[in-house]
């Protein structure tokens, strides 16, 4: 029952990165604290991304002060669908996707019918810091909704499937796709019961899939074979991740990317301290991979050259 207590040596041999090691040897070393503000604020991140041609959902407007809340309808004029996001939120907290609205009601993506009052309340809560880290005053970001590509329709239950790329020193190091399930309530958070599928960084092919840390082979709700998962525009996904490094200067980051039917891969957010569950999804230790990049990968390449270097490793 307690044999797992003796796993330490084997985990080390397999190059698994622990939380302490990540914080001490990687994040504290390569992520300067002053850079965090670039990724903590989604408005800032978006502007920065657009300045170097990273595709992101188009910003419709922002609401900064409580008195602006009632202007919501003016701001979204001309858009059928939109998303309200807290600029300082994390893990999808406080994200409200409006599919359509009429004179009386808003209809959310999760199927709720909301009154105007409800939506104003949501924005108001966002401003007062309900969803932000540490409860600080926040800004509500209103952006275009993503037209999710159909290619993942069979692999996700409601919600948004996204690709998480771990980028180390500008090189895509490890990738997984996160698929929402019934249990995760349409969210792509692994600890809430979403499925994580590890993807080979150079080929994009599925390596392994887990749910609640346990290997699975088919999606629990759609029953799709997870090994059949294919991600189109693989190179473009990786380039977004690689560019995120150029954009932020964070040596270790996680870029969350979604696929839009019309506009291709788009970056949703950058995480300065991405979690370690990606190792379980890939069935591989991250430390081995980071060491490989430290020791063998060349310096001074552009984002595209770095991605091509990584892609060539698979050939």
């Amino acid at each position, binding site marked *: 029952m307690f044999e*797992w*207590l*003796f*796993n*330490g040596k*084997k*985990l*080390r041999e*397999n190059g*698994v990165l*622990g*939380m*302490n*090691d990540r914080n*001490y*040897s990687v994040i504290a*070393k390569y992520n300067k604290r002053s850079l965090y503000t670039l990724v903590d604020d989604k408005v800032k991140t978006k502007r920065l991304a657009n300045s170097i041609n990273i595709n992101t959902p188009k910003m419709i407007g922002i609401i900064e002060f409580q008195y602006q809340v009632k202007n919501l309808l003016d701001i979204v004029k001309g858009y059928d669908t939109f998303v309200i996001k807290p600029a300082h939120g994390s893990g999808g*907290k406080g994200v409200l996707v409006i599919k359509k609205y009429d004179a009386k009601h808003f209809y959310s993506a999760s199927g709720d019918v909301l009154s105007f009052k409800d939506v104003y*309340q949501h924005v*108001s*809560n966002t401003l*007062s*810091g*309900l969803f932000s880290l540490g*409860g600080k005053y926040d800004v509500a970001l209103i952006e275009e909704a993503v037209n999710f590509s159909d290619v993942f329709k069979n692999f996700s239950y409601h919600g948004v499937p996204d690709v998480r790329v771990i980028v180390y020193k500008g090189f895509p190091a490890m990738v997984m796709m996160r698929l929402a399930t019934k249990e995760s309530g349409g969210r792509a958070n692994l*600890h*809430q019961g979403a499925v994580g599928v590890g993807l080979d960084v150079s080929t994009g092919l599925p390596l*392994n899939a*887990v749910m609640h*840390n*346990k*290997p699975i082979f088919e999606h629990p709700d759609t029953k799709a074979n997870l090994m059949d998962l294919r991600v189109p525009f693989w190179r473009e996904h990786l380039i977004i991740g690689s560019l995120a490094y150029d954009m932020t200067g964070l040596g270790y980051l996680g870029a969350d990317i979604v696929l839009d039917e019309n506009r291709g891969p788009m970056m949703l957010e950058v995480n300065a301290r991405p979690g*370690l569950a990606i*190792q*379980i999804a890939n*069935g*591989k*230790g991250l430390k081995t991979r*980071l*060491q490989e990049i*430290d*020791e063998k990968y060349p310096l001074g390449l552009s984002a595209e050259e770095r991605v091509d270097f990584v892609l060539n490793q698979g050939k």
Partner: protein
Amino acid sequence: MKLNLTRFFTIRKVLSLLLICAVGYAAYSIYYKVKYWGFSLSPKAVTDVWTVDAKISFRALGGDVKVSLAVPNDRDGFKILSEEIVAKGYKITQDKINSRVVLEGKDKEGKQNLYYRLSIYDDAQNVALNSLLAAKIDRPILSEEETIQMRKIWELSELQKGDKIQKAILAINQEVNNPTMSLILPLNHTAKEFAEKVIQVLAYKRIPARIARTIKLEEGRKTEKPDIMLEAYYDGHWTLYDLNTAKIGLPKNWVIIQRGGVSLLDVKGGEDSTVVFSVLKSVASPLKMAEHRAKAHDELWSYNYSMYTLPVFEQNTLKWLMIFPLAILVVVIMRNVIGVSTMGTFTPMLLAMALVRTGFWPGLICFSVMIALGLVMRALVAKLNLLLVPRISFVVIFVILLIQVLTVVGYRLNYTIVSSAIFFPIIITAWIIERASITWEEEGAVNTLKEILFTFITAVVTYFVISNEYVRHVMFAFNELNLVILFVVMLLGTYTGYRVTELMRFAPLIHKEN
């Protein structure tokens, strides 16, 4: 990463070095405090403080009176805490050289009662060997028969065990009722006469010896006659012997009052003089005695700048604070080495602190009830969609009112479980409720209960560490240990090994690659 490893190494090296320094310093401090201040590692250690009262009574004859009493001195093992003389109308002089107290009065008449009171502590048991040179003595002048008996005694002494003097004492004790020895050892004798005989026997071999008057320290003891023992100068120093058993040295809890042939009490200008000794025992904690001990060792300076000289209130506050670093260490270990996630970094620590005051079960039950009630209330309020700050304020005020109601009801109905509510930190309680209710909404009941459970477990572990009487005593009496904790915590800040929970979390990665 290889390059960086060398840098880590030096940080760790420096911290390890500092840790070793801190350990060294703490070790020295502990030694110092135990040795010079008499601190003990055990909270239960007490110091016996003996009070010896000498009541001198006599009848003054109407003229000048001079009373001289032999008193113990601090060369004899015990340390003197205080000396007090109650003698109204008398001039008091202390004769340190001869260890006597001299009281002089003028025109005294009638019954006089004078008091001398001495408080002593720290029995060193064996009186330090006194190597003051003894004067040469002459052999006693004996008749022929006496000489024969004397030789006989010394012959018999060869059959006894021990050093020369012990042998003599044992032989004398054996022969004391033998009529053939009556010239040397008279049959009927007082303890003092017996001692004098022994001195005479030793003098025959030119061994200087003298009487020592001692008192056994025994709660409630009262005596007019101190016990008589013998000191003999042999092998270059004075040694104390028991006259009956010939044992060497002063037994535990005995005090020497006077040495040599001089009288215990001299009263000039009075008659019917008596001195009654009575003994009382009291105990004091080593912390209280530290000042006297430091003074006795001439280490008062360092003591004056320690926290033990502060007023009691400040001391108690510091005593409470001194346990914090250890509690913090427990939290650091629980989080970074074990890897449990808790609500708020130091919430479990503050919870544990509250448990120390309320008692374990009452506190735990009361707190659980408070959290549960708070969560219910918070769930009702969630529907109102209040703004953040007013909402948290609501929870804080609710908790305050809850504490008030529980405390009053608990007090009235005499349920300590309920009334212990008052000891829980309000903000922490409110924060746990708020945090739990948000987690509940966002991540479900299971995750919330898990987080609360881990917070409780960490608090309980911390509680058991800091509620231990020994731990608390040691952390206060030897507070330098907090410096050790400081560097241990810093070193843990460079710990990059797996957390215990990660061993389980990453278990799937083991079967994969092999």
